[in-house]
């Protein structure tokens, strides 16, 4: 592979660093923002992983920092690996309210890291998260070996999770992405991933990167990968545990970012998803952690939030939801957990109507996204109610059914989309 040369011009200080940096086959990128507390452990796992699995292969660490005010960058440099340090301008809004992944301007960080990796001639790039402290020495290998030895272009992680972790991903994002791209992915917004030089070339050269300030880049990369015949695999990594001072814990904000991200991709990159069909996952279901701890989920409060939505947000929903969908939502038995259900086909239509409402800007988009929160809480409550007494397999089956409904209802979305 030859170094890609069509990407954006790199900042002068990065250019200067590249002049003194030897070519590398492996690049590892960390997008950072005030992660001084966790960076040493993450870098040590990278160093150990390289030494154990890729001894002797030239490697470089790319630091893409969003303007940390702590010792993050210095501690990265102390890792004993060749480091290229690049700083990028993060949108001000993302600094004031850092997105769920903890890094303002993640898209800019990725783009910079991709360009540097190609300039250094890397055959594979592993993107890791600087605040994920459960990283093991084998993560690097599992994300990279399929790229280097099996010609895989994109390796996505599957983490072991409690069955009620990731309800936004499991009930909204993954089914939607699966139906859109024709391929089920367990965690489309997982921050870690491995990319081939070929895919990097394709992406770096693309003039149409998603706009800054939206959580779209990761989903766009997956869309390109699947739509243009690149190969994708999922790799099991183990538990995902984060220690961060910057990740948002605001549920409505996370719902809005996640949904806004995928809706934005749908809006701008229609060709990536419109005609894709299929949906079966390559690997099996992501493993669920045994639910040793009792479920401490306040289903009644979630249904209460759903009821408040019914009461207060009807004036927004009636602009967004198709009349029969709104009617079905309004008649859900929301008086308590005993009888509360949220049928999958109705759920898929609700999400698709929100995507259409976002597309046609029927109401101010931020209001639209936030008005989705009570619906999500209602659906999540129904999911917990339906699976509380079942085992892991029953949970997996329930999630499969959600994905299936999204795939079957996709026609409705495509037909309504202009």
């Amino acid at each position, binding site marked *: 592979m030859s170094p890609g040369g069509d990407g954006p011009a790199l900042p002068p200080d990065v250019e200067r660093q590249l002049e003194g940096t030897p070519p590398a086959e492996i690049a590892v990128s960390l997008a950072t923002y005030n992660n001084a507390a966790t960076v040493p452990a993450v870098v040590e796992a990278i160093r150990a992983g390289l030494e154990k699995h890729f001894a002797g292969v030239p490697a470089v660490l790319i630091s893409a920092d969003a303007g940390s005010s702590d010792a993050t960058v210095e501690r990265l440099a102390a890792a004993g690996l060749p480091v290229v340090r690049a700083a990028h301008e993060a949108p001000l809004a993302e600094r004031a309210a850092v997105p*769920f992944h903890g890094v303002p301007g993640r898209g800019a960080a990725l783009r910079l890291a991709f360009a540097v990796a190609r300039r250094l001639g890397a055959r594979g790039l592993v993107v890791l998260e600087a605040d994920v402290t459960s990283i093991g020495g084998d993560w690097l290998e599992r994300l990279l070996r399929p790229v280097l030895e099996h010609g895989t272009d994109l390796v996505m992680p599957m983490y072991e999770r409690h069955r*009620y972790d990731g*309800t*936004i991903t499991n009930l909204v994002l993954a089914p939607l992405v699966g139906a859109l791209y024709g391929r089920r992915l367990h965690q489309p917004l997982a921050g870690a991933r491995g990319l081939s030089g070929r895919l990097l070339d394709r992406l770096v050269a693309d003039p149409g990167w998603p706009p800054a300030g939206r959580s779209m880049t990761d989903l766009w990369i997956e869309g390109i990968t699947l739509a243009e015949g690149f190969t994708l695999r999922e790799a099991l990594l183990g538990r995902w545990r984060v220690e961060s001072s910057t990740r948002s*814990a605001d549920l409505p*904000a996370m719902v809005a970012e996640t949904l806004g991200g995928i809706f934005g991709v749908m809006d701008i990159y229609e060709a990536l998803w419109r005609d894709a069909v299929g949906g079966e996952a390559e690997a099996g279901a992501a493993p669920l952690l045994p639910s040793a701890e009792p*479920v401490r989920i306040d289903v009644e409060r979630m249904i209460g939030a759903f009821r*408040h939505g019914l009461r207060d947000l009807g*004036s927004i929903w009636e602009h967004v939801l198709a009349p029969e969908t709104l009617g079905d939502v309004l008649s859900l038995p929301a008086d308590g957990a005993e009888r509360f259900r949220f049928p999958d086909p109705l759920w898929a239509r609700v999400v698709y109507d929100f995507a259409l409402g976002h597309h046609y800007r029927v109401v101010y988009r931020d209001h639209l996204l936030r008005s989705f929160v009570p619906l999500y809480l209602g659906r999540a409550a129904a999911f917990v109610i339906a699976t509380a007494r079942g085992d892991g397999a029953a949970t997996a089956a329930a999630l499969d059914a959600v994905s299936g409904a999204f795939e079957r209802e996709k026609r409705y979305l495509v037909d309504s989309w202009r």
Partner: protein
Amino acid sequence: MTPGRARDWYKDAVFYEVHVKAFRDANGDGVGDFAGLTESLDYLQELGVDCLWILPMYASPLKDDGYDISDFYTVHPSYGTLEDFQKFLDAAHARDMRVITDLVVNHTSDQHPWFQASRSDRASPYADYYVWNDSPNRFADARVIFVDTEKSNWTLDPQRNEYYWHRFFSHQPDLNYDNPAVRQAMLDVMRFWLDRGLDGFRCDAVPYLIEREGTSCENLPETHAVLKEFRSVIDREYGGDRILLAEANQWPEDVRPYFGDGDEFHMAFHFPLMPRLYLGLHLEDSRPITDIFTHTPPIPSPCQWGLFLRNHDELTLEMVTNEERAFMYYAYARDREMKLNLGIRRRLAPLVDNDRRRIELLNCLLLTLPGSPIIYYGDEIGMGDNVYLGDRNGVRTPMQWSRDRHAGFSRAEAVELFLPVITDPVYGYEAVNVAAQTRQPASLLNTMRRLLAARRKSPVFGRGSIDFLRPHNARILAYVRRYEGETLLIVTNLSAAPQPVELDLARFAGATPIEMLGDTVFPTIRQAPYFLSLGPHGFYWFRLDRPGDGDEPYGIEATPI
């Protein structure tokens, strides 16, 4: 947050004050009626109203806009029938809205059969229902309230050839509450309406029930005893969720006794606040507003202040000092027609020159200061007034629904309307109406809906404590409201120019302000002064979120993605 069936629902409620005659005329006779009000309930529900306050709707010769009641047991025929009232009440309840009505307890019309019997026959059971005397010299220390029209509190009745006592107009004789039969008769009146499901009464002119020689005849202990008796009977017989709201146009420390130990009135109006809001805005100075709160005593926990910007009476200046009053006249009533008694008879919008920013800022204060807000009908769309209509009618003109004939209020002929609709070029119904503002997303009406919806998100507005911050810039009024672990920060700019402010928020260091109207996250508070800039008459409603506090978790938010 559903007001639901909580007994103290009034603490979270937004009230809306409305004249039946002025709201909507369903039968086309030129006077609004209960059927019209029933048709309008969807509008009020969408606005975000929790409780309607109906001005007097009883049979009356209407010499004082219904505050002169001639039969407590009927609805004024122009407004409909008892059955119409019942349909209205049931329809409001079906929408989770409550209804209270005005009840004049202090006096009746001189047309009331009780007074007719009292004046005509000294042996009648009603002979002592009113306060009679053979000379006009008793209770000489009591002031005359309506100084523009009344010379004395006594008027000679030629029939009985005695003087009768009246604190208001001479056609409104005061009831004699020293007479136990009068107290029972008034309780029976209350039972009659509460039995129909009414949620409470706004009691008119309560300080004046009892008279004693050598006193001002206001706020007497004997008056409180009567009111406590009413309260205990209502609580006992109706389960404790029916409310009594006091009209006592007094200083807060004098109103305070009307709350008793939580065993008298549930609510009382905060009269002095309102003129000070206008004063603070006009002087661009927060101190008139903060000062009045230092003069506001704490009230028992089941009790609540009722806050208002305008009501059907004039902007009351009784509650300001003479110097302030002169300034208020100068500022808000340059036209002599606008002065009446000791007040200014204008609606909200004309009082602030129809300046949207000032209208919104005043509403912001109304909705965020401690108490339950009371919106006067029409002010949510910025209706104007007609100062040439005489007495207080200038602010009681027909509700402006649309640009149809008579503002969509009535199908009657123009001459049949109880009052003409407003037609001037600025405030006329063609320029200011519900239909047009419904369609404009940024209209005052839609802004009011958003403000009310934001207020509904938190119980702090109705129930929280208040602490004023003291920034160096006195043009900024900023305060912290707290209730059960939730904290709100309200920052307002009383000035017509943009203002910077540094707030000492060190005690909230680590918390993140979330602007509640746009759900925008602001930078986290540190030890250093927190800098904000505000546009002309701008305001912020912040919820202060601390990592780890706030709502109980759902249990799914740790790693939802």
